[in-house]
């Protein structure tokens, strides 16, 4: 609950997302752009007016009223904008809250933005813009792309929404499974981007939306619970991944007392819920791996045999060389460096991993553990020749120095 006349954190972002969702429900997805323009206008008016007379008692309601009146003005001026305009004008003119059920509106907007016909990256950009209320500049900074590129993706996604006449609402029946898959895929992508780049805002939003999907009576499903579990269990460890200097810490170096117990508990509960039904998704297996780490008392008591088994199952569902790499790491922890190197031999020459620093870094570590520091140094140098972040680079340099000693 907001205190009267106060501006709670992210109020504009949250409220604009809610208002856009409500307007799209009333005007139809064809008019997504109009809905966003009207809401943006309301925010800019607040900025022009509030400095003089203070923040109104109920800022959210003020914004809704201004957005509603603005929409009504536009509709009256250009009635042809909306087909069922008389009906729409009636809805806007009626007293009572423009905002309907927040959950339903938000969820319908998520399904719209994550429609499978929209390209993956455009889906992600549209979700962040429309469902989460980020600006194109913020999206661009989070994904290290040009602002114009982010804006382009959003424009293209909106055009597709218009052209395909996508319906607003949580899909039902046979359509639901396919549409949900596309939503979960987008949220997974959003989480990974936010998590790996350390953009907490993006990561938190992916968690919020995953909760919305998982908790919904019809949209929810075991896969959604599994994805939520995965996000929660990973996030629980986020703050211990870097040391004070911003350097990357290995799992065995992390201070487990800094892991977030509340997130682990919530994650384990979501993982339990995901076990209902008989579908086993990649999210289930990834969440299982995250759970094995999150619940291990210390690094030494990690159940590597279990984790290696989960990676083997994951590899069957998703034959990706990156998963095979992780599987080899788990096997090396379980059965030693020789077994790990053997598992690596299957993917060592994989062309898509040739420039992936983790492949070479892993080989470096395995040779180091196998007692061959010269070979280890060779692979660490190779890893350093790949593209990686500054903390990753410093990490590799430390390892290279150790193996060359």
């Amino acid at each position, binding site marked *: 609950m907001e205190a009267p006349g106060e501006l709670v954190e992210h109020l504009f972002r949250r409220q604009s997302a809610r208002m856009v969702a409500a307007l799209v429900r009333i005007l139809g997805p064809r008019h997504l752009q109009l809905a966003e323009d009207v809401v943006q206008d309301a*925010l800019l008016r*607040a900025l*022009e007016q*509030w*400095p*003089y007379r203070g923040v109104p008692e109920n800022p959210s309601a003020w914004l809704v009223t201004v957005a509603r009146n603005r929409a009504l003005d536009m509709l009256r001026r250009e009635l042809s904008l909306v087909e069922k305009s008389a009906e729409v004008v009636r809805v806007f003119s009626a007293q009572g809250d423009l905002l309907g059920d927040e959950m339903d509106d938000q969820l319908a907007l998520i399904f719209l933005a994550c429609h499978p016909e929209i390209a993956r990256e455009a889906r992600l950009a549209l979700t962040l813009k429309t469902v989460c209320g*980020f600006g194109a500049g913020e999206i661009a900074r989070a994904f290290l792309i040009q602002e114009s590129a982010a804006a382009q993706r959003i424009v293209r996604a909106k055009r597709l929404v218009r052209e395909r006449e996508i319906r607003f609402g949580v899909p039902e029946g046979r359509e639901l499974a396919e549409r949900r898959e596309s939503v979960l895929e987008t949220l997974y992508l959003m989480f990974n981007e936010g998590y790996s780049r350390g953009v907490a805002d993006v990561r938190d939003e992916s968690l919020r939306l995953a909760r919305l999907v998982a908790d919904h009576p019809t949209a929810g499903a075991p896969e959604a619970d599994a994805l939520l579990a995965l996000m929660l269990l990973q996030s629980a460890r986020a703050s211990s991944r870097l040391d004070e200097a911003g350097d990357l810490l290995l799992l065995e170096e992390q201070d487990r007392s800094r892991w977030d117990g509340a997130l682990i508990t919530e994650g384990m509960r979501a993982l339990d819920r995901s076990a209902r039904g008989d579908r086993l998704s990649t999210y289930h297996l990834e969440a299982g791996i995250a759970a094995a780490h999150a619940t291990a008392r210390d690094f030494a008591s990690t159940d590597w045999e279990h984790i290696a088994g989960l990676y083997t199952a994951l590899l069957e569902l998703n034959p990706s060389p990156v998963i095979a790499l992780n599987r080899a790491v788990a096997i090396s922890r379980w059965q030693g460096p020789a077994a790990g190197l053997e598992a690596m031999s299957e993917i060592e020459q994989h062309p898509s991993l040739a420039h992936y620093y983790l492949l070479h870094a892993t080989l470096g570590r395995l040779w180091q553990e196998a007692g061959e520091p010269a070979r280890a140094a060779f692979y660490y140098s190779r890893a350093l020749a790949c593209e990686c972040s500054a903390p990753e680079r410093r990490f590799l340099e430390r390892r290279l120095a150790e193996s060359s000693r």
Partner: protein
Amino acid sequence: MDSYLLLLHGTRLNPNMSPDEIQAITARYKAWAEKLQKAGRLAGANKLEDRTGRVLRGQGAEMRITDGPYAETKDVLAGYFLIQAESYEDAIEWTKESPHLDFGTIEVRKVQVV
């Protein structure tokens, strides 16, 4: 203490700012106004309506009433604050902290007591 009128001219706002960015600027204005208020220096403030205004010239039958002054200049008067200050220097100290200076200019005028 005397009254000073702060005239806030022009607002160059980027219309494509994100909701978070718009809120951040709004919060800066709010903090500035509240600081004046808490110090007992704020006597009044108002936004002036955009895109309206009349200018009167002449008298009686000669009077000409035109729209404006916004029509001739981009330097729109967006609003005003009336504050209490010891001197021009003091009024300027308070005005300096206004976030408005990032987006436009502020004209400070002492109210003359007659």
